[in-house]
């Protein structure tokens, strides 16, 4: 029997499979489809202080093996999330969740994280400093080591839970930003968020998305995500959640060999709502076939001296 357990910052996950923020709502839609208790954990939709509608539509565009989204952080606001969404989720999901927060100022990040971290249900706070779809917030904090460090410090100062900084791939040196977060006290890192992208409607001669550009996600970005997870995991001593383009058990193992502690599955949930269950079912068999007893044994194998 292989062991799929992974330990991250106080949470012992039954398996490393976590649906990614923004692609699993607050779990409700998926709980209708399968028993979501099989999941390692769930990363909740990005939450801001106030309720947000997000950007005007169209906010989805199709790409080759991927998609652009420019949702712009639609969410009911932190109070509704803590008072309604999390309690509702608790009825169908018994494990701890990862709360994802975003803000338009360092203060908002801290306020939002503090509030949501009070929930018993929340095991980890994931701080999105990498949303490419809102101006004046999100990614603005994730593209310089200094700003990333400042957000980290502010959130760490108030959060009652371990803090993971969610990093943007739209940078020259992701490892440098990762190190700044680590230095500022981050307990872990989540990466990658989406890559800035665009499609043009040649009939209308303007961008498909009303927001003009959006974030690219899905299988197309997997090799980019894997390289960034590799570079980051090598550079820091805190856990890394590998995110980006994963849709198969073999890609979970690639991510862990690149140095990830656990993984998050995003867009794949939209294409196949049962994909996380499939991966969780396939993983042990694949591990067995590959001679892997437990995931700790292969973490970083792609770069660690054997």
């Amino acid at each position, binding site marked *: 029997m292989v062991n799929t357990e992974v330990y991250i910052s106080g949470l012992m996950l039954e398996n490393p499979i976590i649906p990614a923020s*923004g*692609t*699993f*709502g607050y779990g409700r*839609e*998926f709980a*209708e*489809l399968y028993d979501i208790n099989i999941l390692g954990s769930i990363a909740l*939709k990005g939450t801001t202080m106030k309720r947000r*509608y*997000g950007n005007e*539509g*169209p*906010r*989805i*565009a*199709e*790409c*080759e*093996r*991927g*998609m652009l*989204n420019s*949702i712009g952080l*639609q969410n009911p606001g932190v109070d509704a999330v803590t008072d309604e969404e999390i309690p509702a989720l608790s009825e169908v999901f018994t494990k701890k969740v990862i709360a994802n927060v975003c803000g338009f100022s360092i203060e908002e990040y801290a306020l939002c994280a503090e509030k949501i971290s009070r929930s018993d249900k929340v095991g980890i706070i994931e701080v999105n400093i990498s949303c490419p779809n809102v101006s004046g917030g999100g990614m603005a904090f994730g593209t310089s080591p200094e700003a990333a460090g400042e957000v980290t410090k502010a959130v760490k100062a108030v959060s009652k839970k371990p803090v993971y900084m969610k990093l943007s791939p739209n940078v020259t040196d992701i490892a440098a930003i990762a190190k700044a977060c680590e230095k500022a006290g981050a307990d872990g890192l989540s990466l990658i968020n989406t890559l800035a992208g665009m499609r043009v409607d040649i009939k209308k001669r303007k961008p498909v998305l009303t927001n003009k550009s959006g974030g690219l996600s*899905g299988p197309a970005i997997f090799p980019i995500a894997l390289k960034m997870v590799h570079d980051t995991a090598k550079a820091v001593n805190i856990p890394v959640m590998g995110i980006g383009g994963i849709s198969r058990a073999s890609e979970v193992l690639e991510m862990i060999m690149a140095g990830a502690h656990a993984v998050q599955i995003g*867009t794949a*949930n*939209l*294409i*196949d*709502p*049962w994909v996380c269950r499939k991966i969780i079912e396939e993983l042990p068999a694949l591990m067995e076939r590959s001679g892997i007893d437990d995931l700790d044994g292969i973490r970083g194998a792609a770069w660690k001296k054997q």
Partner: protein
Amino acid sequence: MKQQDYEVIENRLIAKNTYEMKLMGNTGEIKRPGQFINLEVKGFFLKRPFSICYRTREYICIVYKIAGGGTEAMSSMAVGEKLSVLCPLGNGYDMEDCCSLLLRKSSSLLIAGGGTGTAPLYGLAKEMLKKGIKPKVILGFGSKDEVFYEENFRDIASDVTVVTEDGSLGEKGLVTDIMSGDEYVFACGPTSMLKAVWEKSAGGQFGFESRMGCGFGACMGCSCKTTGGSKRICREGPILKREEILW
């Protein structure tokens, strides 16, 4: 909602660039006319949403128009091909909602379709017939060669009017040109038509389209603002009540 393989049992041109496709598979969970399916087209990443035109015990019928690469690929799918489909999706038309109005003034019940928006209204008309409800029907198309299902509607409804924008079939004009303005309307069609119908109607339910990431409520890609806050076209829609709609 289930994900299942459906088999193409018919796929034929019924009007200019417009095809009727019958998909054999489970239809038991479909609750209401106006619900839709999300259909995987090989080689394309996102599934394509199509209204269920009508369903029988054995198959689902959809009517689609070539709009881009995905529908283009669909048009050359052969009988026997298997397609992965999410079904059923969305809320569908609520036939109860109009009952009170209907009881008062049954003559003012209208089905108003524009272009391919006509498709789900055919299934709706069939269901209404079963319940003994006899709506007026107005179908609007660009021009004669785009018209489809006129006969199908005439077979089940007594009062069917077809209008075309260029006058090549039926009266020349728009659906709204022959609305009286006091109707409760079941509408589906292009946004500009929906808006015009909305303005001229007393009440009703309107079928919307939106670019979709998932089709089942997970991504917030399809959201729109309504009087009751934001709604997901794929889940709280695609059918919105007249009083919910914000333009």
